[in-house]
């Protein structure tokens, strides 16, 4: 069964919650840029170290991040084998795998420490910069919120459906990976349809305001940039400047 909080906002009180989501996404962009550019040992260590620091500051257990990596172990092994087949050196392969693993962990740090509304807002602000068609920013935000909500409903429906078929006599959780994949793909369509139905009901609720507006949000996000935002931006720009001056 899938644990919803392995894939969604965790709500833990931490320093990273205070950082603006646009700044977090900017940091992610810089990280992706640096892993694609020319390799430098010091920059690599600083990059990896920064991600590790963010993981510690997120106040979410390290085992959660490692669980995500563990679930992708077969893909990582395949990638390792492919790169080895392409005659890359072991050191280079290890560096590439490390970069990808830490990229995944960086993405999950952002997901675990950013509420869905704020993450969607951050993504829509960034996309609005390249919005040539003129789509209203609210619509872009709602699109991302719907995607996030759909993932939540999908996981809930998946868990409910698997429980139901287990009670009807199909052994899923205690079977091998091939049986699990077969059962999953056989029932994927119905789980998708039910999740989509729940999403449509949610849209209806929002349209007619059928939800409880008195619910207090746990998210302590500050609209103005704070010291940590500037520090974060400074570190990322510092890495780019270092790359331009010393590495390139």
């Amino acid at each position: 069964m899938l644990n919803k909080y392995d894939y969604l906002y965790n709500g833990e009180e931490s320093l990273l919650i205070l950082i603006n989501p646009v700044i977090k996404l900017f940091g992610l962009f810089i990280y992706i840029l640096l892993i694609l550019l020319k390799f430098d040992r010091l920059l690599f260590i600083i990059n990896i170290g920064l991600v590790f620091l963010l993981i510690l500051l997120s106040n979410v257990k390290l085992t959660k991040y490692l669980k995500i990596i563990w679930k992708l172990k077969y893909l990582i092994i395949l990638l390792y084998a492919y790169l080895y087949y392409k005659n890359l050196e072991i050191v280079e392969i290890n560096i590439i795998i490390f970069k990808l693993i830490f990229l995944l962990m960086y993405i999950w740090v952002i997901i675990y420490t950013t509420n869905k509304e704020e993450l969607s807002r951050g993504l829509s602000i960034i996309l609005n910069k390249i919005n040539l068609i003129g789509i209203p920013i609210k619509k872009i935000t709602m699109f991302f919120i719907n995607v996030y909500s759909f993932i939540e409903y999908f996981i809930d429906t998946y868990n409910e459906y698997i429980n139901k078929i287990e009670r009807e006599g199909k052994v899923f959780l205690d079977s091998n990976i091939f049986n699990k994949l077969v059962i999953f793909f056989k029932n994927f369509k119905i789980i998708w349809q039910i999740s989509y139905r729940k999403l449509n009901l949610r849209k209806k609720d929002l349209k007619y305001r059928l939800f409880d507006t008195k619910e207090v949000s746990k998210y302590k996000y500050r609209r103005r940039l704070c010291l940590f935002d500037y520090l974060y931006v400074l570190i990322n720009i510092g890495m780019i400047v270092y790359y331009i001056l010393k590495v390139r």
Partner: protein
Amino acid sequence: MEIILNQLYCIDNKKTSMEKKYLDDVNLVINKGSIVGFVGENLRIIGDLIMAIKRPSKGEVKLDSLIIKRTSHIDNVLNLRKKVGCVYSSNIDIAIDETVKSLLKKTMKNYGYKPSNITKHMVDSLKIVGLDDSFLNREIKTLSSTEMKKVKLACVISYNPEVIILENFEKGLIYREREYFRKLFLKLKNKFKKTIILITTDLSFLFEIVDKVFVINNGKLVISDDKDIFYEDKLYKYVEMPNIISFTKYAQQEDHHISEYTDIKELIKELYRNVK
């Protein structure tokens, strides 16, 4: 099958802000061939633990000789699940494109139950729950929630398990249907030696049929007592008092000498005989 819950913990997302405690150090024994009532919120986890759909965070579930722990391996899960049946309501039933007949057939096939005359067996299973054979060809989507519950109970009865677990089964049933199912559960217990676990928040459904009542509040087992508990005040700190009991207590406070009944017909007779 005797069921023992031994120092059982079931906690999701432990030590996080999303922590959810289903069971917290629960110790109890469910005797073979008895009807027990569980009163509390979020208790469908009990059925999931007994069927080994979910593993406990700590502690163990003992089913005769089989022990289910967090990391224990079960050789043949299906053999265990053949002996247990769960009837839970679910929102996703309305999206299923199946008929009642195909659902019954699929359940019996999954559990390896092969009767000599499959159609007769399906009709008999439906009759036991008060549905006629016209329901065989009806689609699941077209059933009401009470009809769906009855069909699920028929599916469970079709493969003849030793333990039947029902969650909020009484919700939506009319008085006549409630009495019918209470008699049915008594018959299943007395004649066929089945163990029946009723998970409910409505105590009036448990009157006269239940052997033991377990009340679980915030994961803790707060009350574990037999059927004489219904007139004790300690029970009503955790659950709503049924009308018959609140009426009797009120009448006793007003100096009317009424005995403590849980059967409404007996209470009416008593009132007719004694109250001026």
